[in-house]
Protein backbone atom coordinates (compact mmCIF):
# COMPACT_ATOMS: atom_id res chain seq x y z
CA UNK A 1 0.00 0.00 0.00
CA UNK A 2 2.90 2.30 0.58
CA UNK A 3 5.22 1.08 -2.14
CA UNK A 4 6.84 3.41 -4.62
CA UNK A 5 4.50 2.31 -7.40
CA UNK A 6 1.33 3.08 -5.46
CA UNK A 7 2.61 6.44 -4.31
CA UNK A 8 3.63 7.41 -7.84
CA UNK A 9 0.25 6.34 -9.15
CA UNK A 10 -1.58 8.35 -6.51
CA UNK A 11 0.58 11.40 -7.13
CA UNK A 12 0.08 11.27 -10.88
CA UNK A 13 -3.68 10.86 -10.61
CA UNK A 14 -3.94 13.70 -8.14
CA UNK A 15 -1.82 16.07 -10.22
CA UNK A 16 -3.75 15.30 -13.40
CA UNK A 17 -7.04 15.92 -11.60
CA UNK A 18 -5.80 19.24 -10.22
CA UNK A 19 -4.55 20.25 -13.68
CA UNK A 20 -7.91 19.46 -15.21
CA UNK A 21 -9.73 21.48 -12.54
CA UNK A 22 -7.38 24.41 -13.06
CA UNK A 23 -8.01 24.35 -16.82
CA UNK A 24 -11.77 24.32 -16.21
CA UNK A 25 -11.62 27.26 -13.79
CA UNK A 26 -9.39 29.19 -16.19
CA UNK A 27 -11.93 28.71 -18.91
CA UNK A 28 -14.80 29.76 -16.62
CA UNK A 29 -12.96 32.95 -15.71
CA UNK A 30 -13.39 34.09 -19.32
CA UNK A 31 -17.12 34.50 -18.65
CA UNK A 32 -16.39 37.33 -16.20
CA UNK A 33 -15.14 39.53 -19.00
CA UNK A 34 -17.67 41.97 -20.54
CA UNK A 35 -16.30 43.12 -23.86
CA UNK A 36 -17.19 46.36 -25.65
CA UNK A 37 -15.69 46.22 -29.12
CA UNK A 38 -16.24 48.71 -31.91
CA UNK A 39 -15.54 48.68 -35.64
CA UNK A 40 -16.02 50.65 -38.81
CA UNK A 41 -15.64 49.56 -42.42
CA UNK A 42 -15.62 51.89 -45.38
CA UNK A 43 -15.57 50.78 -48.98
CA UNK A 44 -13.09 53.09 -50.61
CA UNK A 45 -13.43 51.77 -54.14
CA UNK A 46 -14.99 49.07 -56.26
CA UNK A 47 -11.98 48.10 -58.35
CA UNK A 48 -13.85 45.99 -60.84
CA UNK A 49 -17.12 44.08 -61.11
CA UNK A 50 -17.35 41.39 -63.80
CA UNK A 51 -19.17 38.24 -64.78
CA UNK A 52 -16.82 35.28 -65.02
CA UNK A 53 -16.85 32.83 -67.96
CA UNK A 54 -18.59 30.24 -65.73
CA UNK A 55 -21.44 32.67 -65.12
CA UNK A 56 -20.64 33.78 -61.57
CA UNK A 57 -20.32 37.42 -60.63
CA UNK A 58 -17.02 38.53 -59.17
CA UNK A 59 -16.13 41.82 -57.55
CA UNK A 60 -12.88 43.29 -56.25
CA UNK A 61 -13.05 46.07 -53.70
CA UNK A 62 -10.78 48.11 -51.49
CA UNK A 63 -11.81 48.64 -47.89
CA UNK A 64 -10.73 50.74 -44.97
CA UNK A 65 -11.19 48.71 -41.77
CA UNK A 66 -10.73 50.24 -38.35
CA UNK A 67 -11.56 48.56 -35.07
CA UNK A 68 -10.93 48.59 -31.34
CA UNK A 69 -11.08 45.04 -29.99
CA UNK A 70 -8.88 45.47 -26.93
CA UNK A 71 -11.69 44.73 -24.48
CA UNK A 72 -11.98 41.17 -25.81
CA UNK A 73 -8.57 40.11 -24.51
CA UNK A 74 -8.34 38.33 -21.15
CA UNK A 75 -5.43 36.66 -19.40
CA UNK A 76 -6.58 33.37 -20.95
CA UNK A 77 -6.59 34.66 -24.54
CA UNK A 78 -4.02 33.23 -26.89
CA UNK A 79 -5.09 35.15 -29.97
CA UNK A 80 -8.04 36.77 -31.68
CA UNK A 81 -9.01 35.58 -35.15
CA UNK A 82 -10.97 38.25 -36.99
CA UNK A 83 -12.48 38.30 -40.42
CA UNK A 84 -14.70 40.52 -42.52
CA UNK A 85 -17.51 38.81 -44.41
CA UNK A 86 -20.09 40.13 -46.83
CA UNK A 87 -23.61 38.84 -46.24
CA UNK A 88 -26.42 39.06 -48.76
CA UNK A 89 -29.50 37.26 -50.00
CA UNK A 90 -30.25 36.01 -53.50
CA UNK A 91 -33.37 34.41 -55.01
CA UNK A 92 -31.75 30.97 -54.84
CA UNK A 93 -29.94 31.30 -51.51
CA UNK A 94 -31.47 32.61 -48.30
CA UNK A 95 -28.02 33.49 -47.01
CA UNK A 96 -24.64 33.94 -48.60
CA UNK A 97 -21.58 34.67 -46.52
CA UNK A 98 -18.29 35.35 -48.25
CA UNK A 99 -15.16 35.98 -46.23
CA UNK A 100 -13.20 38.86 -47.72
CA UNK A 101 -10.30 39.38 -45.36
CA UNK A 102 -9.00 37.88 -42.15
CA UNK A 103 -6.22 38.46 -39.67
CA UNK A 104 -4.82 37.08 -36.46
CA UNK A 105 -4.31 39.47 -33.56
CA UNK A 106 -1.78 37.93 -31.21
CA UNK A 107 -1.83 40.50 -28.43
CA UNK A 108 -3.90 43.27 -26.87
CA UNK A 109 -1.58 46.00 -28.15
CA UNK A 110 -2.38 45.09 -31.75
CA UNK A 111 -6.14 44.97 -31.18
CA UNK A 112 -6.73 48.65 -31.94
CA UNK A 113 -5.92 49.02 -35.61
CA UNK A 114 -6.64 50.59 -38.95
CA UNK A 115 -5.96 48.91 -42.29
CA UNK A 116 -6.44 49.84 -45.91
CA UNK A 117 -6.68 46.68 -48.00
CA UNK A 118 -8.25 45.03 -50.99
CA UNK A 119 -10.13 41.79 -50.45
CA UNK A 120 -7.79 38.94 -49.58
CA UNK A 121 -10.18 36.28 -50.84
CA UNK A 122 -12.08 36.40 -54.09
CA UNK A 123 -15.62 37.65 -53.78
CA UNK A 124 -17.44 35.28 -56.13
CA UNK A 125 -21.20 34.75 -56.08
CA UNK A 126 -23.00 31.49 -56.77
CA UNK A 127 -24.72 32.90 -59.82
CA UNK A 128 -24.95 36.39 -61.23
CA UNK A 129 -27.17 38.19 -58.77
CA UNK A 130 -24.96 40.94 -57.49
CA UNK A 131 -25.85 43.91 -59.68
CA UNK A 132 -27.53 46.58 -57.59
CA UNK A 133 -27.77 44.27 -54.58
CA UNK A 134 -27.56 45.51 -51.02
CA UNK A 135 -25.26 43.69 -48.65
CA UNK A 136 -24.01 43.82 -45.07
CA UNK A 137 -20.41 43.75 -43.99
CA UNK A 138 -19.82 41.88 -40.77
CA UNK A 139 -16.69 41.90 -38.66
CA UNK A 140 -16.47 38.57 -36.82
CA UNK A 141 -14.04 37.70 -34.08
CA UNK A 142 -13.15 34.35 -32.56
CA UNK A 143 -11.45 34.45 -29.19
CA UNK A 144 -9.04 31.49 -29.08
CA UNK A 145 -8.14 30.76 -25.47
CA UNK A 146 -4.97 29.33 -24.01
CA UNK A 147 -7.22 26.58 -22.69
CA UNK A 148 -10.96 25.95 -22.67
CA UNK A 149 -14.03 27.29 -24.38
CA UNK A 150 -13.84 29.45 -27.49
CA UNK A 151 -16.08 32.49 -27.90
CA UNK A 152 -17.22 34.13 -31.09
CA UNK A 153 -19.32 37.15 -31.91
CA UNK A 154 -19.73 39.79 -34.59
CA UNK A 155 -20.67 43.35 -35.47
CA UNK A 156 -23.00 43.82 -38.43
CA UNK A 157 -22.64 46.96 -40.53
CA UNK A 158 -25.41 47.59 -43.01
CA UNK A 159 -25.98 49.88 -45.91
CA UNK A 160 -23.55 48.77 -48.58
CA UNK A 161 -24.55 47.97 -52.13
CA UNK A 162 -23.11 46.87 -55.43
CA UNK A 163 -23.14 49.07 -58.53
CA UNK A 164 -26.03 48.63 -60.94
CA UNK A 165 -23.80 47.74 -63.88
CA UNK A 166 -20.62 45.75 -64.45
CA UNK A 167 -17.46 47.80 -64.70
Amino acid at each position, binding site marked *: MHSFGYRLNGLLTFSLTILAIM*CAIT*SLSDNLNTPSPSAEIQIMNINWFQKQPQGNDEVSLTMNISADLQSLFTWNT*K*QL*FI*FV*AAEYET*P*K*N*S*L*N*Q*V*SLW*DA*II*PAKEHAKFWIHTSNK*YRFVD*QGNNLRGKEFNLTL*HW*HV*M*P*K*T*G*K*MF*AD*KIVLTGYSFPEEYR
Partner: protein
Amino acid sequence: MGWIGDTVDSVKSIQLRQLLTQAVSLGMIVTSALIIWKGLMCITGSESPVVVVLSGSMEPGFKRGDILFLHMSKDPIRAGEIVVFNIDGREIPIVHRVIKVHERQDTGEVDVLTKGDNNYGDDRLLYAQGQLYLNRHHIMGRAVGFLPYVGWVTIIMTEKPIIKYILIGALGLLVITSKD
Protein backbone atom coordinates in the same frame (compact mmCIF):
# COMPACT_ATOMS: atom_id res chain seq x y z
CA MET B 1 15.95 -8.57 -6.60
CA GLY B 2 13.35 -9.23 -3.94
CA TRP B 3 10.75 -7.68 -6.20
CA ILE B 4 11.46 -10.19 -8.94
CA GLY B 5 11.17 -13.04 -6.44
CA ASP B 6 7.84 -11.69 -5.21
CA THR B 7 6.55 -11.41 -8.76
CA VAL B 8 7.48 -14.99 -9.56
CA ASP B 9 5.85 -16.17 -6.33
CA SER B 10 2.63 -14.30 -7.03
CA VAL B 11 2.44 -15.67 -10.56
CA LYS B 12 2.82 -19.19 -9.20
CA SER B 13 0.19 -18.73 -6.51
CA ILE B 14 -2.63 -17.52 -8.72
CA GLN B 15 -5.84 -19.32 -7.95
CA LEU B 16 -8.61 -19.60 -10.44
CA ARG B 17 -11.14 -17.51 -8.46
CA GLN B 18 -8.65 -14.69 -7.98
CA LEU B 19 -7.81 -14.73 -11.68
CA LEU B 20 -11.47 -14.58 -12.63
CA THR B 21 -12.10 -11.69 -10.21
CA GLN B 22 -9.28 -9.73 -11.75
CA ALA B 23 -10.49 -10.47 -15.24
CA VAL B 24 -13.96 -9.22 -14.31
CA SER B 25 -12.61 -6.00 -12.77
CA LEU B 26 -10.51 -5.40 -15.86
CA GLY B 27 -13.62 -5.95 -17.96
CA MET B 28 -15.52 -3.45 -15.77
CA ILE B 29 -12.86 -0.79 -16.32
CA VAL B 30 -12.88 -1.27 -20.08
CA THR B 31 -16.68 -1.27 -20.21
CA SER B 32 -17.05 1.89 -18.15
CA ALA B 33 -14.54 3.66 -20.39
CA LEU B 34 -16.64 2.59 -23.38
CA ILE B 35 -19.83 3.81 -21.68
CA ILE B 36 -18.26 7.21 -21.03
CA TRP B 37 -17.10 7.47 -24.65
CA LYS B 38 -20.49 6.49 -26.10
CA GLY B 39 -22.23 8.79 -23.65
CA LEU B 40 -20.06 11.68 -24.83
CA MET B 41 -20.99 10.83 -28.40
CA CYS B 42 -24.68 11.15 -27.48
CA ILE B 43 -24.31 14.39 -25.52
CA THR B 44 -22.27 16.20 -28.13
CA GLY B 45 -24.16 14.75 -31.08
CA SER B 46 -20.93 14.10 -32.88
CA GLU B 47 -19.41 10.83 -34.06
CA SER B 48 -16.14 11.64 -32.43
CA PRO B 49 -16.50 14.17 -29.63
CA VAL B 50 -12.77 14.64 -29.19
CA VAL B 51 -10.19 14.92 -31.99
CA VAL B 52 -6.45 15.45 -32.01
CA VAL B 53 -4.97 18.15 -34.24
CA LEU B 54 -2.58 16.38 -36.58
CA SER B 55 -1.28 19.10 -38.88
CA GLY B 56 -0.07 22.65 -38.61
CA SER B 57 -2.66 24.12 -40.93
CA MET B 58 -4.44 26.01 -38.16
CA GLU B 59 -1.42 27.51 -36.47
CA PRO B 60 -0.83 29.56 -34.42
CA GLY B 61 -4.28 28.87 -33.00
CA PHE B 62 -4.15 25.06 -32.89
CA LYS B 63 -0.85 23.30 -32.92
CA ARG B 64 -0.13 19.66 -33.63
CA GLY B 65 -0.90 17.71 -30.50
CA ASP B 66 -3.77 19.84 -29.19
CA ILE B 67 -7.12 18.24 -28.64
CA LEU B 68 -10.42 19.78 -29.70
CA PHE B 69 -13.85 19.23 -28.16
CA LEU B 70 -16.54 18.97 -30.78
CA HIS B 71 -20.25 19.60 -30.68
CA MET B 72 -22.78 19.15 -33.43
CA SER B 73 -26.16 20.83 -33.29
CA LYS B 74 -28.92 21.48 -35.77
CA ASP B 75 -27.92 25.16 -35.85
CA PRO B 76 -26.99 26.35 -39.33
CA ILE B 77 -23.34 26.43 -40.29
CA ARG B 78 -22.03 29.98 -40.47
CA ALA B 79 -18.82 31.61 -41.65
CA GLY B 80 -16.00 31.64 -39.13
CA GLU B 81 -16.92 28.43 -37.36
CA ILE B 82 -14.19 25.86 -37.01
CA VAL B 83 -15.52 22.58 -38.35
CA VAL B 84 -14.22 19.05 -38.54
CA PHE B 85 -15.04 17.22 -41.73
CA ASN B 86 -14.29 14.05 -43.65
CA ILE B 87 -13.66 13.99 -47.37
CA ASP B 88 -15.19 11.01 -49.19
CA GLY B 89 -12.45 8.49 -49.64
CA ARG B 90 -10.21 9.86 -46.91
CA GLU B 91 -10.31 8.61 -43.37
CA ILE B 92 -8.45 11.35 -41.54
CA PRO B 93 -10.75 14.18 -40.44
CA ILE B 94 -9.67 17.75 -41.20
CA VAL B 95 -10.14 20.72 -38.88
CA HIS B 96 -10.49 24.01 -40.75
CA ARG B 97 -12.49 27.23 -40.68
CA VAL B 98 -15.54 28.00 -42.80
CA ILE B 99 -14.95 30.98 -45.07
CA LYS B 100 -17.92 30.83 -47.44
CA VAL B 101 -21.53 29.83 -46.92
CA HIS B 102 -24.33 29.54 -49.47
CA GLU B 103 -27.61 28.42 -47.89
CA ARG B 104 -30.57 27.47 -50.07
CA GLN B 105 -33.85 29.31 -49.64
CA ASP B 106 -36.18 26.35 -49.73
CA THR B 107 -34.36 23.29 -48.43
CA GLY B 108 -32.01 24.95 -45.98
CA GLU B 109 -29.18 22.86 -47.41
CA VAL B 110 -25.87 24.57 -47.41
CA ASP B 111 -22.72 24.76 -49.53
CA VAL B 112 -19.64 25.48 -47.47
CA LEU B 113 -16.05 26.32 -48.37
CA THR B 114 -13.28 25.91 -45.80
CA LYS B 115 -9.69 27.01 -45.37
CA GLY B 116 -6.98 26.40 -42.82
CA ASP B 117 -5.86 29.60 -41.08
CA ASN B 118 -2.23 28.87 -41.87
CA ASN B 119 -2.83 27.78 -45.47
CA TYR B 120 -2.51 30.17 -48.38
CA GLY B 121 -5.45 28.92 -50.43
CA ASP B 122 -8.83 27.43 -49.69
CA ASP B 123 -9.52 23.71 -49.33
CA ARG B 124 -10.76 23.01 -52.87
CA LEU B 125 -7.46 21.17 -53.47
CA LEU B 126 -8.33 18.81 -50.63
CA TYR B 127 -11.90 18.10 -51.68
CA ALA B 128 -12.74 15.16 -53.94
CA GLN B 129 -12.32 15.50 -57.69
CA GLY B 130 -14.84 18.02 -59.00
CA GLN B 131 -16.18 18.88 -55.54
CA LEU B 132 -16.47 22.61 -55.03
CA TYR B 133 -18.20 22.78 -51.67
CA LEU B 134 -18.85 20.75 -48.54
CA ASN B 135 -22.35 19.89 -47.44
CA ARG B 136 -23.78 19.34 -44.00
CA HIS B 137 -23.36 15.58 -44.11
CA HIS B 138 -19.60 15.92 -44.55
CA ILE B 139 -19.28 17.85 -41.30
CA MET B 140 -18.77 15.89 -38.08
CA GLY B 141 -18.86 18.73 -35.61
CA ARG B 142 -17.91 22.23 -34.61
CA ALA B 143 -14.92 22.89 -32.38
CA VAL B 144 -16.12 24.52 -29.18
CA GLY B 145 -13.18 24.14 -26.82
CA PHE B 146 -9.62 22.98 -26.72
CA LEU B 147 -6.84 21.69 -24.49
CA PRO B 148 -3.22 22.19 -25.49
CA TYR B 149 -0.60 19.41 -25.69
CA VAL B 150 -2.82 16.59 -24.35
CA GLY B 151 -3.12 14.97 -27.78
CA TRP B 152 0.59 14.14 -28.06
CA VAL B 153 -0.10 10.84 -26.24
CA THR B 154 -2.36 9.74 -29.11
CA ILE B 155 0.05 10.94 -31.78
CA ILE B 156 2.98 9.08 -30.24
CA MET B 157 0.96 5.90 -29.87
CA THR B 158 -0.21 6.08 -33.49
CA GLU B 159 3.14 6.88 -35.04
CA LYS B 160 5.22 4.54 -32.92
CA PRO B 161 2.93 1.58 -32.24
CA ILE B 162 5.68 -0.21 -30.33
CA ILE B 163 5.02 2.15 -27.42
CA LYS B 164 1.35 1.11 -27.46
CA TYR B 165 2.31 -2.55 -27.17
CA ILE B 166 4.81 -1.87 -24.38
CA LEU B 167 2.18 0.08 -22.44
CA ILE B 168 -0.51 -2.56 -22.84
CA GLY B 169 1.97 -5.30 -21.95
CA ALA B 170 3.05 -3.45 -18.82
CA LEU B 171 -0.56 -2.78 -17.80
CA GLY B 172 -1.44 -6.46 -18.30
CA LEU B 173 1.54 -7.52 -16.22
CA LEU B 174 0.54 -5.06 -13.49
CA VAL B 175 -3.01 -6.39 -13.36
CA ILE B 176 -1.89 -10.01 -13.15
CA THR B 177 0.73 -9.50 -10.49
CA SER B 178 -1.17 -7.10 -8.22
CA LYS B 179 -2.47 -8.59 -5.02
CA ASP B 180 -5.73 -6.62 -4.84
